[in-house]
């Protein structure tokens, strides 16, 4: 069972990455530009407005391009979840020593938990 599952997971990981590549990269790049607005405002207010608009389009409303955009957003979000889960499975299968991976995951979870706690307390 284990032997049969790995190639399937690997294919799922690769193809979910392909879906992400085309669409989610745009989100990450425009998001990065939004969070570094002060340093990257050289493009002027017009360019900034366009980036903001592109990054914030959401919901199943409007004309056909908007509906397709929302569908792509859902597809990308699901592909990202699949990408993370399958990637984690592949790491479990590929690496014998798990200590470094567990330490990194715990570090990232602790940071995320710390931020959540700081805003909840």
């Amino acid at each position, binding site marked *: 069972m284990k032997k049969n599952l790995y190639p399937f997971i690997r294919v799922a990981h690769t*193809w979910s990455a392909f879906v992400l590549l085309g669409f989610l990269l745009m989100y990450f790049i425009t998001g990065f530009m939004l969070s570094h607005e002060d340093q990257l405002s050289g493009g002027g207010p017009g360019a900034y407005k366009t980036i903001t608009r592109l990054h914030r389009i*959401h919901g199943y409303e409007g004309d056909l391009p908007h509906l397709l955009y929302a569908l792509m957003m*859902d597809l990308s*979000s699901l592909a990202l979840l699949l990408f993370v889960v399958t990637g*984690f499975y592949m790491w479990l299968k590929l690496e014998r020593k798990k200590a470094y991976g567990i330490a990194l995951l715990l570090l*990232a979870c602790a940071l*995320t938990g710390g931020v*959540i706690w700081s805003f*909840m307390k």
Partner: protein
Amino acid sequence: MRAQRLLLRLHLYAGIFCAPYLVIFAVSSLDINHRFGFMQEGNETVIRTVRQKIPFGLPDHRLAAALRDTLGLTGWAPRWETSRAKGTFRCKVIHPGKEFTLTADSAAERITISEKRKGFWKLFNNLHMFGGDIPNRSWVHVLWGFYQDICVVYLLFAACSGIFLFAKKRKERIAGLVVVSAFALLSLLFMLTMA
């Protein structure tokens, strides 16, 4: 071969480190598109009062910032959320997890703090947009800002290294290239149409 193995390890380990943010990004994106009921903002409110001298002569936005700093609150104090009426000043201090409404009474030298808690899921989703830059932030918020940037860089790296690893080993190179090109073209078309 050793370089390829190293690349694969870097691809895997950086991915593990970024996994929590990628999950937050994916879940919050789904919520932005669908507005799930259980993820919406809570309305649990706690009210407390503090005796404090109030520098009433300051302009509205500076007074709001001064009150926030005096009370030791973390958050943004939007200019458009300030108002004055008959010896009282009202403003808001907002962060991803809470919304504080501050009502300062100059005669009584008293500040009433109404603390609205947004709830776990709203906070979880708000981390999507939180870049770590917030007034009166702590070191954990600074680290979060760096973490978010690392995740963006990782995604770019994962894309490049993933394509390289795929092209090295897989037989379906052409099919993969066609799918990536199709999605990239679709993405570009959307950007041009929407812009």
